[in-house]
């Protein structure tokens, strides 16, 4: 028989030290869990669209609050992003088609350089307002995961639809027609 090295058990003490240890461990785990959950959320998909101010390449300041009552298409792009170039003509065509319906098209240039951005706009003949996302504030408030991404905001300011990846004119029409009508 081996010499036993067990000691008699005692009832656990509720001491301040234990409370502090448990409190800090649980607080830390909760914090990490909450942080994980938030980052799992991904891009915004419903509810009120975040407010933003876009200063275009031409120096014009556009406030999201001024766009109340209008259908807004917010498209995130970059000159170094090849799929963005694929959808650019479609976006411009959709802009021209829905211009008289009052649909606002905004292009948000994500983490780009101005000369290249201007060249991109010239190349695809984009005429709707485009501006740089200074400090990546707008893209962070929309929680985008990459470019291109397009967010459709209805007349009440809520996010109606989200398109991840390059879109086509047909797709844009299928999303915008009900929004313009409704």
């Amino acid at each position: 028989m081996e010499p036993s090295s067990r000691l008699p058990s005692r009832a656990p003490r509720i001491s301040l030290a234990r409370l502090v240890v448990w409190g800090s461990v649980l607080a830390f785990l909760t914090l990490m869990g909450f942080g994980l959950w938030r980052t799992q959320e991904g891009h915004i998909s419903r509810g009120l669209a975040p407010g933003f101010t876009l200063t275009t390449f031409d120096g014009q300041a556009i406030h999201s609050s001024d766009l109340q009552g209008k259908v807004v298409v917010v498209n995130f792009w970059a000159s170094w992003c090849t799929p963005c170039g694929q959808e650019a003509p479609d976006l411009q065509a959709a802009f021209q088609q829905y211009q008289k319906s009052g649909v606002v098209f905004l292009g948000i240039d994500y983490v780009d350089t101005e000369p290249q951005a201007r060249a991109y706009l010239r190349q695809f003949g984009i005429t709707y307002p485009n501006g740089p996302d200074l400090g990546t504030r707008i893209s962070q408030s929309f929680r985008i995961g990459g470019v291109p991404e397009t967010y459709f905001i209805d007349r009440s300011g809520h996010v109606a639809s989200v398109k991840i990846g390059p879109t086509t004119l047909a797709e844009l029409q299928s999303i915008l027609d009900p929004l313009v009508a409704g």
Partner: protein
Amino acid sequence: MLPTLGYLLLATAFLVCLYGIGASIHGVLAREERWILSARNAMLLSWPLITLSALSLIWLLLTNHFEVQFVWSVTSRSMPTYLKVTSLWGGQAGSLVLWSWLMSAFASVAALRRWDRDREFLPWVVVVVLVTLAFFLSLALFFDNPFSRFWQASNGQTLAAMFPPAGAVPLIPSDGQGLNPLLRHPGMILHPPMLYLGFVSFVIPYSFGMAALITRRSDDRWIRLTRRWTLVGWLFLSLGLVLGARWSYDVLGWGGYWGWDPVEIAAFMPWLTGTAFLHSVMIQEKRGMLKRWNMVLIILTYALVIFATFLTRSGLLSSVHAFAQSSIGPVFFVFIGGTCIISLALLLSRWDDLGGEEHLTSLLSRETLFLVNNLLFLSIVVACFWGVVFPLISQLFTGQQVTVGPPFYQRTTGPLFAGLLLLMGIAPLSAWGHTALQNLGRLILRPFLLSLVLLAVLLAVARLSDPGALLGFWLAGLVALVTLDEFWRSASARSRTHPEALPVALWNLVARDRRRYGGYVIHLGVVLMAIGIVGSQFFQQQTQGTIAQGQEIQLGPYAVRHDSISEWTTNDQRDVTRAVIAVFHGGNQVAELHPRRDYYFVAQQTMTIPGVYSTVQGDLYLILVGWEPIASNGATFKIYWNPLVNFLWCGAVVFILGTLVAAWPDPERRRSRASAPHWSYVPAKQ
């Protein structure tokens, strides 16, 4: 057929694990040994099942079964055979299978040891090991299935699933994506298995620690039993980290070997707590103290191992954000959180049982110095963990993304590492229990004076002025001198008392106290690595230039001349651009280097392979800059001069050798164990 078979084998292994857990607990509660033995057999059975599953996956990889999603994502027809095998750990799904296979192998080794004297530990070791194994199997089965196949649904959509969805037909791609080019390197072939070996090894001491807590044992039996496991795990983890650094140096083409990337740090943290644990268990063995602290350390090491396993899966773009945004992140978080809470609850419930018999009595005793060692290691872990996790916290609270980069880690951990170096020079001279300052001073005097001579030489000859570098070199010299002095004194003392020549005395010393002298060899390895790190971090030089053929770039005393450049396409789907560079030192040609740029056109990825001229003084590291065009007016080259970096790799070799010495089983003890009949009582004297 084969994918289904592989999946079912994995699922069976999972069910076997669950059975083992249940049987073990039932056996303890009902006090029936046969249930516990059955659980042990279940643990043994898991290995052949997982082996067969892994072999079927490897077979699928080798035979180009591209309808299997994992095979498609990591292999292609043009890859050589050996790469197809190693692509098993080229993606998350396969590396989960590898992890499970290694875990079941080590579990079987643990199951096959003699359990006669530690019967009460067995059921709980089985439970903890099988819970870990079941967790990883469940990830492979339910979250990232390596046997999942492609199907084409009736609406034309491509799906990936294990079993055919309704109305879908099999879809067999003609070729796969191929292994990420960055993984096609010997370092990356060995580095993940080595790391995983290190990780799974640490599960065993953790399980024994939990068993000791559950069975209310307050002695150090669990530590003695798992001492070799800890050392072996630590060996593999160190090897894995060094290989990762070497791979990074050889292949990533930025002239460095450690970028303080979250992935690197995640694998580094369990090594840090593991090293702290290695040292502080010696205190528990010698003086019966710090039982609770050792429990805390092994629990931390286990939790960090699980955390690192996810972060270091073979996805090269992983970062903490990738961890957070993937579907597997929450599952891992729940497992780690649950582990922490359960382990903490167990530890706190046994807190009073684990009170030590002795106390720390002296500021300079070896126990206290080992505790200072622990303090420094854990402070480094806190700094590393905080730096890795802070970007997530910042994004959570302020919505702003931030980067915590190398400057933070260097400034925070640099002084702590210097403190550890200093400790390595003092602690071997301290005694257990109590050390008078005079004794310590007397012992350290000779090495200390010699180290000052060394410092003077550094100042005068090398004309160094950077205080951090001077401190680093001086400390490295001090530790080397103290350690060598220890060898010298012990050997000469022994040769005085025994009729042995000095070298023989040294050999016998090392043979009879492998742990201590192996540890000293490890310290010498660390010294060499420290020299390499200080040299390459503080004194790196670099330059970049575009030169035409025949032109030269200068960097320090070296000049490199662009001799020629050639381009061709290989038969494994890459365009190679190779430059021939002549290296001159002081006017004489000393080397010809061939930096290369490989463009894998299917994966659309470029890899830059450096040309390196290695000497004792350092490495001249040359890369063909990957993204600049190569035209008639020349090619762009980046040159790095990394002083003393080869001390790092040589030091790593010494380090590994020292660990082998320390871990080598003692022949005398093996003989005494084998001769005694296994059912009799053998005095616990190890």
